[in-house]
């Protein structure tokens, strides 16, 4: 497996999508190496990971081809940057929803030709992908739906609109009753915008279908995360993170099925006492800002230092799947209200106050059997950075080992992070 693995290339397809093929050609070999090094070098991985390995091998080819064909067959593609944008409604209207967050250092220089340097690397990476024409997903979308969560994002959308049609939905920053009504209106606007481009009207049945499909995907991830919490762990943290990342670009029905197949295998593993690390391995939970593909930096450092990551309290993690939408609505209006209620439960640090998140982190800490929390903050993300103060206080009050780190995608601080992570593990071990 290890030697045969390769991230595939398809210059013809890329050409058709208007990419900078010459530049992009270097990407698949780089990703191949990184993937072999970080993922395929692990021992005793679950066999059903092979589907997700394939998803990586086909990330720039097979899956793009699939999306592109569907698009030509009349399914518009909508790109998003936030788990607050309701993908249920895209599915209901017969479109495809793709997460476009950027997790690569390679596109940052492209972005910095235009954007200021001192903003979040996730925003820069995504913007750079579009400007440099070096992301097939960005090239295949019909429109992008941004939001007003943080300053870096909402102001970048104004510039992104020059390269790809970019709509923006207003996300409230508080959770009062009137904020909920504002948000419901935004949801309705979103539905209309999606319907305009898919040229359909999503009725009650269609919306019910969309909700069911995405609920099923989130439920599969919930099941996987619960199994993953078992000690000794049947699956590594980096494999779980990878699956959480793939959730944002795979076809939802197939994805849910494959996650359940993996869950079945993990149940067997647990029954047979098969694990990826002994019970004595320090268990670390990660909280904070999302890690978009191919950002595996922190997980790799933690697991290389001899610990295992047992939970991601993150948007590419539990914030994406912890809540489902009530499926028992009687009419369309009620469906949209229940959808809105579900989304209002997302505890992103862009909200104030946001004490629900502190409670949620503590709850996940208990559930995952973690022995310490590493809070991960992307550089220049002010909301998560400031919220770390409260998180630290909450952890210290309960004697939970806690460390917050602020970093970006550049490799220059890996040595220092290794030291800090190792020292944190020494602290846990006592």
């Amino acid at each position, binding site marked *: 497996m290890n030697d045969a693995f390769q991230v595939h290339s398809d210059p013809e397809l890329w050409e058709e999508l208007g990419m900078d093929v010459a530049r992009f050609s270097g990407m698949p070999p780089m990703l191949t190496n990184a993937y072999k090094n970080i993922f395929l070098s692990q021992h005793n991985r679950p066999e059903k990971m092979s589907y997700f390995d394939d998803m990586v091998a086909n990330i720039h080819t097979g899956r793009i081809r699939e999306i592109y064909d569907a698009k030509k067959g009349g399914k518009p593609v909508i790109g998003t940057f936030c788990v607050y944008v309701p993908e249920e409604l895209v599915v209901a209207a017969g479109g495809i929803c793709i997460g476009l967050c950027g997790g690569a250092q390679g596109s940052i220089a492209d972005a910095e030709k235009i954007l200021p340097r001192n903003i979040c690397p996730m925003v820069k990476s995504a913007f750079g992908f579009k400007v440099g024409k070096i992301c097939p997903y960005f090239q295949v979308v019909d429109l992008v739906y941004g939001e007003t969560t943080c300053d870096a994002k909402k102001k970048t959308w104004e510039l992104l609109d020059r390269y790809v049609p970019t709509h923006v939905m207003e996300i409230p920053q508080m959770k009062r009753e009137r904020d909920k009504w504002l948000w419901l209106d935004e949801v309705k606007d979103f539905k209309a915008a999606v319907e305009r481009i898919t040229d359909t009207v999503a009725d009650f049945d269609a919306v019910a279908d969309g909700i069911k499909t995405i609920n099923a995907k989130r439920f599969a991830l919930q099941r996987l995360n619960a199994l993953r919490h078992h000690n000794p762990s049947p699956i590594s943290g980096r494999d779980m993170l990878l699956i959480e990342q793939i959730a944002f670009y795979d076809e939802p029905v197939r994805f849910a099925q494959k996650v359940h197949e993996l869950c079945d295998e993990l149940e067997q593993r647990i029954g047979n006492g098969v694990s990826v690390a002994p019970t004595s391995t320090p268990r670390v939970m990660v909280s904070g800002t999302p890690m978009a593909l191919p950002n595996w930096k922190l997980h790799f450092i933690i697991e290389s230092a001899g610990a295992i990551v047992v939970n991601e309290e993150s948007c590419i993690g539990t914030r994406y799947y912890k809540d489902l939408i009530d499926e028992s609505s009687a009419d369309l209006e009620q469906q949209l209200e229940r959808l809105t209620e579900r989304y209002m439960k997302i505890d992103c640090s862009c909200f104030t106050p946001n004490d629900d998140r502190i409670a949620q982190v503590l709850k996940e800490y208990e559930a995952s059997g973690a022995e310490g929390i590493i809070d991960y903050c992307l550089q220049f993300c002010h909301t998560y950075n400031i919220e770390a103060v409260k998180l630290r206080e909450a952890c210290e009050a309960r004697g939970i080992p*806690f*460390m917050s780190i602020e970093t970006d995608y550049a490799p220059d*601080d890996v*040595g*220092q992070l290794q*030291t*800090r992570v*190792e*020292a944190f593990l*020494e602290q846990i071990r006592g």
Partner: protein
Amino acid sequence: MQVGIDLGSRTIKTVALKGGAVLQRRVVESGFEPHRQALQLLGDHPRARVVATGYGRHLMQQHADLDIITEIKAHALGARHLFPHCRTVLDVGGQDSKVIQLSENGRIVSFQMNDKCAAGTGRFLEMMALSLGYDLKQFGLAAAEAQASTAINSMCAVFAESEVVSLKNRGVPPGEIARSVHLAVASRLAAMVQKTCESHHLVFTGGVANNKTLVAMLEKALGVPILVPEDPSIVGALGAALHAGCS
């Protein structure tokens, strides 16, 4: 016998212990191939149990059969050995500075390390001394003797250097600039300590602790006396040697 070796960014330190007493300690420049230097130093003690720490610890592990611990644990062990009541360790080395908080029985409760920026490290002080034409010793003395100072506002080593240059061009005497740089570093380190913990029985380790002017300013900023080991630069190596005894 137990040997601790600390592979830092500028120097390599070893401490050899026998029956709890320090038998030998050495400090050499890291050079371009630190692991060769280190292996040579270890050649003096062929049968010792060895623990490595510092930036080069992983590199050492590839070349020799030994255990490793982080600088944080090493400094905590070393400081606690020298000062059994120690609850806070401030270590300022060549490339980073850290604050470690210990529980009553010496366990690490929390720690903090400087972020990507170099201000408040040994390297920073060296750069500033160099740009003023001092060696490190003169730098500290000049700072102590100066009567006045100006605020250095920049938190970044690169910008601080350009601030220093513009002060020079304004005709500010070098001693005064030296004093200003020391005060800026002291207040930065004090803030780092205060953010991590209440400082009682604070032990200051690492080569920078040899700078008496800085120690005095830090004491004033924190309002507590600071304990400085006789040879602050070998505390990490000492901690590693002590760990070799319990592994």
